[in-house]
């Protein structure tokens, strides 16, 4: 599942016009790395919510910019285990 989520994040970022060619598991999503700013983080979160049936609180979004790709994918896996008994929505 981790791999699936990581690929879904990469696909979402590509569709959002970000260059993911040099993205690695340790790349930070926000200004320290890929440079997603607040609206981009919001969009990524909504896309992942739609794809995997998880929910993120608004208060969580600012902190997401500090996560690496690996950490973000792990967060989604963890969230799926606790919030979505029905499994992925897509």
């Amino acid at each position, binding site marked *: 599942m981790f791999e699936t989520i990581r690929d879904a994040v990469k696909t979402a970022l590509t569709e959002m*016009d970000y260059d993911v060619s040099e993205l690695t598991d340790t790349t930070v999503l926000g*200004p320290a790395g890929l440079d997603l700013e607040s*609206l*981009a983080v919001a969009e990524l979160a909504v896309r992942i919510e739609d794809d995997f049936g998880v929910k993120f609180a608004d208060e969580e979004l600012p902190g997401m910019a500090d996560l690496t790709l690996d950490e973000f994918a792990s967060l989604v896996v963890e969230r799926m285990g606790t919030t979505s008994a029905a499994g992925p929505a897509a």
Partner: protein
Amino acid sequence: MNSTAPRAVVTGIGLVTPLGTDVAEFFEALCEPRSGLVRPPEGHVAHGLIDSAGIAPDLDAAALVPRHDRSVADRFTLMAVAAADAALADAGITIGQDVDPYRVAVVAATGAGGMITFERQARASGERGAPGVSSYLYSAFLPNMATARIALKHGIRGFSSTVTTACAASAHAIAEAFRLISAGDADVVVCGGTEATLGGLTGIAGFRNARALATGWEDDPTAASRPFDSRRNGFVLGEGGGMLVVERADFADARGAAGYADLVGWGSTTDAYHLIMPNPDGSGVAACLRSAIARAGLDLADIGYVNAHGTGTKIGDMAEAAAIQQVFGPDQPAVSSTKGVTGHLLGGSGAVEAAATVLALAGGTLPPTHNLDDPDPKCDLDHVRGGARTAPVRAALSTSSAFGGHNVALVFQPPSTRLARTAAGAAGGTDHAG
């Protein structure tokens, strides 16, 4: 005009037009005249759809807006930021260093705003549903985002606004600058507007299907835009626009800046006749011109040049010619339209033509109307045609009219600043008053 009110002077010009981004080259091309119109090349969205277009240069988003949202900045905002950057550089003003940020205003106009973005996002939503829509939709397409981006980039913290009166929008924005300066509400105003006319199929098709565009010129796209000519049959879409720096004349003097021309008055009326057709009797435009001249405290005889809206539509040119004839009577000023060279930049046209008017006044050279080979007898005016006319003038008008029935006229005079400049260069050293 209230003689105690601060005078407003144009000290900076930035342009993005089918003729490029260089101001001196722009004015040279107008005066030759050399057309900026081409047949849309293969691969361009307008290819095969329209015969002729005024395509502005590609702009490097990386040099204009921050990295994180560069991919979503609509072309109309990139053009506005590029023009504002150039105008501020031309005026030699760094906001925060040369002027209090709260005393600087910005009014960047547009007709339609980010139509390219909206079209793209509407397609994405059609193909992929809600998940296809970017969170940046509003920060990309809203018409006020050019103003916002310019303010953000340059730290402008005074008045800001956006005018969206279609083809009169950027002339309205410049009129707003006059009001802000003369009321004492700003020391420096960055004003003008842009239109990304040629980026999306929907916008182009809307004009084409309304039969507003010139047709039958596939063999010579440079001949398609022919204001006031008997063979005119519509306007040619152009993209781009311009931004001016307008500031208090005493403020410009205090920092040793040279002025191109003073902005001394404005007029604005509404036809209230039809949503997109001008009133053919020209009464709305005539009232607008009279009001502008009166507000400037000038006589009719002072106006030596009118840079007409002159789009090349049958009825629009006739209405405007009727208005100029009515207002000036037997002593007609010289008249020309820049659209023969540039095409119609819609919301960007007022600012580009204000720049042309200012440059004509500053250099005493009046550009001709390109393609005006056989003036329509129904548009009997003192046309400048064939080549430029050397004629120092005491005052000049720039007129704009729009879908919606909006009319705007701007009045310029030679600069009251100590130092004057022309298109030929930042003359800086010329002592105008001396």
